[in-house]
């Protein structure tokens, strides 16, 4: 059972305090988007073995949504960060690079490569 530190209230919350919210950093497509864009936005998701970015909500706690970067294979948590961002912060990306050189996920990857 995972523990994630909520970046809003600082609580190291166990999974029963949290609710999972699926993949992070989806770009919303609304009216004006074409069928493919909208389809991908609604349905296409990453399913990586390794580095992954997710949304979580501290539901039984401060109620805030946040982002988590973790490894789906080892459960290692590289970091949690604000929900109010369109992409993983550099600091998180650096942490992942340090632990998983050569990583990539959607359009993000090990910047040192």
């Amino acid at each position: 059972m995972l523990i994630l530190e909520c970046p809003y209230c600082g609580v190291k919350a166990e999974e029963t305090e949290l609710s999972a919210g699926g993949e992070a950093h989806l770009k919303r497509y609304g009216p004006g988007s074409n069928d493919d864009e909208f389809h991908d936005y609604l349905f296409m998701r990453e399913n990586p073995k390794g580095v992954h970015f997710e949304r979580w909500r501290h539901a039984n706690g401060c109620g805030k949504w946040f982002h988590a970067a973790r490894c789906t294979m080892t459960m290692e948590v590289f970091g949690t960060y604000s929900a109010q961002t369109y992409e993983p912060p550099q600091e998180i990306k650096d942490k992942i690079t340090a632990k998983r050189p050569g990583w990539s996920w959607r359009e993000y990857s090990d910047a040192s490569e």
Partner: protein
Amino acid sequence: MSNPVTATNGAEFTGIATVKDAGLQGMITLRGDLSSSVLGAAVKAATGAEVPAQGKVSVVESGAAAWMSPDELLLLVPYGEAVAKTAALAEALSGEHALAANVSDARSYFSISGAGARETLAKIAPVDLSPEAFAAGDFRRSRTAQVAAAFWMEEDGSFRLVCFRSVGAYMFNLLSNAAHPQSSVDVY
């Protein structure tokens, strides 16, 4: 017109801890910019307490302010003054983006006191309640068995717990069960 009543009507149970319906308590949900001096002044005016730090509650004689989230406080005021104080807060904060809502009647409020108070809570909440980790003035929102709740520790070592009114009876039974006289864990 009528006498307002709590959901558990003064219920009390004593085992390894004493669990008590703590009665009608004025409570105001305040959302806004917690760093704003206007908000700080309004909180002080309403409760007498300062805006608490993250994870803390500031308790004073006339009330308390508890940190619910980066943009939310729970204010404690006398029950009979909650409506007026909510209005006063709204008035004081009319120039900012803020929301004050009277939630006094939406909550059940309990005290848990006695030697087994820490253990009673530690049976239902995934929270480190050891004296090293949880002290007077600490405030925590969490899960208690199957419902959400918030609790904090008073200076005298007793706890106060707030949950939704609809589950007040569940919470009282849950706490009483956890405080069963023969269920001391003997670690705290």
